[in-house]
């Protein structure tokens, strides 16, 4: 069969080209390769990125003319399966591949596609998302960052916040207000902005977990060429929303590819103890089963959505349940880990605590943000109530 040949050849090529160091899947998002000019990656990671990018396999289904792999959905599935079977880490991740790239493919002008897609495939440019503002969180369409036309440029002034990896990114896709007369959703424009432009100042925000994955980005008289508008001026809200739906599915998917499924049980055996081969505390044991069974149901629901899409059903607003449920389930899992550790989860740093214990604590703190970022749980519930259930305003 053709598919079998492709699978065989793919596997052979992967084995021949993957450096030994990339066989272990990364344990955290920070260990992934995000590309970009501002981060240096270990040689093997860089080599893995380069060989895969050369074949376009960092973006397997994108057209070859933009540097992609030009694979069919079926071939891309085979490639993903073989990568998973070999336990190879993905060569590249980030918002270029998962968010702005797909949007440009569907909505971008030929000029924007030519300019931006190939560098994304090669991992040369790392992207960040300029959506939230201090005054526009859940009410995203209330954003106030202003862009005023001046010749061939827009001059942008304002402030973005909760920009993931804003200090490490090379370019930002940003929502700005180009018309203050229009209704709230009508005056928004979707721009592409080089982070090296004078007037752009990212500043990391320290979180309760101690980490700083988010930035504030200050924008002062930043000149962005008009040719960097995606879609049409004042027509950005539709694009922004399309991307948000995408982001929500991505967030839920991220929680699917979780740690080893045995981890809760192994931790419980060590910290809570065993009796007759069972986790000794029946309450903890029941809660582990609850979390794992809820996870199974979420995974099955994601699989059902994919099977449905394959059968030609259009994905709808029901994907909001993935974001809602996936994030809250992850929070329950992280919290349960802390409870299993007991007093050993009280460490912040230093002696008396293992690295793994410290990580459990910080991961729990970080997880509290899951139901806030990318649209709070309450916003997801509003979307379901309105768009799926048709409840009145």
């Amino acid at each position, binding site marked *: 069969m053709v598919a079998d040949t492709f699978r065989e050849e793919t596997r052979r090529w992967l084995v021949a080209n993957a450096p030994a160091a990339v066989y272990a899947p990364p344990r955290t998002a920070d260990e992934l390769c995000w590309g970009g000019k501002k981060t240096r990656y270990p040689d093997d990671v860089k080599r893995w990125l380069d060989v895969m990018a050369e074949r376009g396999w960092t973006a397997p289904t994108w057209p070859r003319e933009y540097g992609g792999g030009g694979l069919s959905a079926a071939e891309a599935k085979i490639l993903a399966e073989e990568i998973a079977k070999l336990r190879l880490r993905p060569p590249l991740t980030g918002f270029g591949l998962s968010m702005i790239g797909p949007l440009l493919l569907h909505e971008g002008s030929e000029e924007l596609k030519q300019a931006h897609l190939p560098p994304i495939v090669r991992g040369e440019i790392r992207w960040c998302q300029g959506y939230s503002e201090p005054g526009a969180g859940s009410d995203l369409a209330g954003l106030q960052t202003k862009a005023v036309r001046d010749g061939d440029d827009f001059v942008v002034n304002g402030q973005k916040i909760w920009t993931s990896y804003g200090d490490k990114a090379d370019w930002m896709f940003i929502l700005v207000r180009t018309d203050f007369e229009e209704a709230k959703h009508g005056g928004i424009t979707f721009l592409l902005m080089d982070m090296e432009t004078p007037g752009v100042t990212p500043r990391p925000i320290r979180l309760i977990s101690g980490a700083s994955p988010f930035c504030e980005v200050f924008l002062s008289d930043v000149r962005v060429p008009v040719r960097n508008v995606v879609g049409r001026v004042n027509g950005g809200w539709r694009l922004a929303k399309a991307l948000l739906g995408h982001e929500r599915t991505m967030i839920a998917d991220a929680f699917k590819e979780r740690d080893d499924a045995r981890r809760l*049980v192994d931790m419980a055996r060590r910290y809570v103890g065993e009796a007759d081969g*069972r986790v000794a505390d029946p309450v903890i044991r029941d809660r582990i089963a609850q979390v794992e069974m809820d996870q199974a149901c979420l995974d099955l629901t994601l699989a059902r959505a994919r099977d449905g899409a*394959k059968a030609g059903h259009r994905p709808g607003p029901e994907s909001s349940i993935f974001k*809602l449920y996936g994030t809250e389930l992850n929070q329950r899992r992280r919290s349960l880990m802390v409870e299993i550790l007991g007093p050993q989860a009280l460490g912040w740093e230093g002696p008396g605590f293992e690295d793994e214990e410290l990580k459990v604590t910080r991961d729990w703190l970080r997880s509290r943000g899951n139901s806030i970022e990318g649209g709070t749980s309450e916003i*997801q*519930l509003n979307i379901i109530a309105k768009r799926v259930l048709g409840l*009145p305003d």
Partner: protein
Amino acid sequence: MDLVLSAEQELLQQTAREFVAGRSSLKRVRSLRDGSDPDGFSRALWTEMARLGWLGIILPVEHDGLGLGYMDLMVVMEELGRGLMPEPMLSTVLLGANALLLGGSAEQQKEHLAPIAAGEQLLALAHQEPRSRHAVHHVETRAAPAGGGWILRGEKVHVLDGHVADRLIVSARTSGAPHDVEGITLFLVRPDAPGVRVTRQTRLDGQNAALVRLEDTPADRHTVLGEVDRGGAPLTRVTDRATAALTAEMLGSMTATFDMTIDYLKTRVQFGVPIGSFQALKHRAARMYAELELARSAVMHAHRTIDEGRDDAAVARAVSVAKARTSDAFMLIANEGVQMHGGIGMTDEHDIGLFLKRARAAEQTFGDAAHHRNRVAQLDGY
């Protein structure tokens, strides 16, 4: 196998939906509950269901079945659940016919399966006991050897449709202690055999069950289903398949409960606006929707796992995940349904209460959520 219905299954679903809406109604369900109908279900409807082929969906073609799978059965069960149909699908087809199919001899299958598919014979599985709670292998009913056969003695409870069954399949202990999986034997018992006393039970959901007392009932070796002492494993295989079908029925019932509640939120006006415009109710409705979708995935997966011919442990796990989920989700949706209906939801006149009662009965049938979480933990080795 994908988690998506085929075109044929969608058609079957449509037929079943129209059948339930057109031939049954909650009014009929009420009159069966409130009247003194000796059967508690409609034999005429049962015959129609047989003619549609539904009683034989999972039965082999050589026994006049359709030879289809559990995914096909699932769509019919869901629609029956939508209408709270009391007809004896679970007892006769899922428990009775399956016990014959998975444990019976060729002669036993030949004798009973075709009449079952034709709607001419009703079966019941008498496995539950006063002290067994949710453990199917907890069997205190004794089968004592006597002259080449056995004498059965014990008490069975919640025997679904036991009051109308033409044959009872009884689990009895031929050896071992009350909790052992080994030492259980299944017997095919006539309800008119000596020492058998069947007493109809009245349950909160109005569905039909009976007490079965066995007082020195003789059973010869032709009445044994499968092997002596080896009935425990087939019993689990049977109850797992019945549990899967019950989760599909529950899915239909909870969908009806949910739809009824959403309708009410859109039409009930207080403070001059539909109460569905209040965020306190919207958010709870949205969470119910998420629970419903997750339950649907788990139910489909359980049926698919059986159809794929996976091993007993895989089927057990998938079924337990589905039963835990549907038990919790149905209770949540029914409780919230009554709450959101307010005072009218507390009246017997309103239908929402029928669904709350069914949620409780279904939750307690074949093990509640905690029972199935315990089972998954055991299967997963912790």
